């Protein structure tokens, strides 16, 4: 199990951009009235933001990153690295981060590349960007994380579509002498098919039959270019692995529960997250949520939750410490402990 400390970097700010369009699960057409109420109660997801035609993840990234760089008053020439974490990029190739270098008018001498991860991706992204900045002597970097899951899920598949919301986030990472981030990372590729878009790459190239709609029971229709999610498998994985990675993080680095002000878990679904909190014996008030209004936003869920829930608390000017924990598609997981004392700006935007 990988336990890693990265020194001298902090988060300076986070911007999150969600689509303006709101969908309400209580009026989702493939639920009966009773089913809808039960779904909202169990998953905790009432509303979701979904993109309108033509808008993709990188458009949300662009708005979030522009706002963040401007509000932090960063000189674009000082930004040395740009990493995008997503599973809904513009193209198989070229990498979206490179296209964004141009759209954001960043320097051409920047290091820019993409990382293909989902629910665990934000914490992995923090690990990757801070590690690279550390060995490269970089002072400022931007981490983008998010997905437009409403495009990969079939709207007629009640087992996936009502869970996910779209969001793109930008996180500013700055040099901060003495600051430390602690990570615990892992994965289990044996569960690769628990969350998968079957015909989405080179193993199964998209072909005519990829588009055929298949019926998997009432209200569950999707094709092989749509996201499939084995709910029971993922639930079983989440309630066992998420507590494990957080416990390992706390034990390995001798973290004291009293030093942790907030837990921000990947927003999988309420039922799963509540079991995880219970197993970790966490005071529920310490655990932050954005599920009700935004759903499961994949790799954007942790930064979005920070933006929505911590914005007002930031004014207290307290030196908050937080544990972030992501887990899901891969299967993959990552948790980290970090100080949020350098966060100067949090903002939620709409496109």
């Amino acid at each position, binding site marked *: 199990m990988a336990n890693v400390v990265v020194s001298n970097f902090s988060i300076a700010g986070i911007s999150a951009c969600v689509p303006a369009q709101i969908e309400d699960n209580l009026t989702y057409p493939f639920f009966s009235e009773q089913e809808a109420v*039960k*779904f909202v109660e*169990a998953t905790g997801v009432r509303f979701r933001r979904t993109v309108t035609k033509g808008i993709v993840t990188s458009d949300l990234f662009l708005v979030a990153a522009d706002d963040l760089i401007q509000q932090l008053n960063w000189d674009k020439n000082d930004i040395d690295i740009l990493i995008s974490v997503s599973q809904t990029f513009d193209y198989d190739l070229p990498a979206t981060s490179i296209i964004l270098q141009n759209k954001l008018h960043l320097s051409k001498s920047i290091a820019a590349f993409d990382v293909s991860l989902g629910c665990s991706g934000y914490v992995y992204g923090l690990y990757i960007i801070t590690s690279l900045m550390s060995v490269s002597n970089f002072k400022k970097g931007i981490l983008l994380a998010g997905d437009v899951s409403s495009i990969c899920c079939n709207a007629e598949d009640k*087992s996936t579509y009502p869970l996910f919301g779209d969001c793109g986030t930008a996180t500013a990472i700055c040099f901060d002498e003495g600051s430390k981030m602690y990570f615990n990372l892992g994965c289990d590729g044996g569960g690769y098919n628990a969350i998968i878009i079957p015909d989405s790459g080179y193993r199964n190239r998209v072909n005519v039959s990829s588009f055929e709609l298949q019926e998997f029971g009432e209200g569950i229709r999707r094709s092989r270019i749509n996201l499939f999610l*084995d*709910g*029971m*498998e993922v*639930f*079983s994985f989440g*309630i*066992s692995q998420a507590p494990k990675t957080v416990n390992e993080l706390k034990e390995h680095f001798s973290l004291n529960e009293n030093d942790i002000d907030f837990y921000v878990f990947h927003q999988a679904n309420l*039922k*799963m997250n509540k*079991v995880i909190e*219970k*197993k970790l014996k966490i005071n529920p008030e310490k655990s932050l949520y954005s599920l009700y209004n935004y759903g499961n936003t994949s790799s954007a869920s942790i930064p979005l939750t920070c933006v929505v829930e911590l914005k007002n608390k930031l004014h207290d000017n307290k030196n908050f410490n937080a544990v972030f924990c992501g887990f899901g598609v891969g299967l993959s997981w990552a948790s980290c402990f970090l100080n949020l004392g350098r966060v100067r700006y949090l903002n939620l935007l709409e496109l």
Partner: protein
Amino acid sequence: MKKLDLGEFINDFASLFNDLQVQLTESTNFKEIEEWDSLVALSLIALVDEKYGIRLLGEDIRSVTTILELYQKLLSKQY
């Protein structure tokens, strides 16, 4: 962790439902219970994890039909 007992497990299983119309026995086909759905299945996974420390997989649930078979599946995974 609690030791598995069939009678107690049947009671555990019954507790997952809000409005159970039938008396559960070891031979009940739980997938035919009106209230049984994927959300109840998640509650079952959570219960078995919390009470018995057993990680029940989606495939485990899909491969059985009666409560006894489910109980035997749990027994086989206990160690």
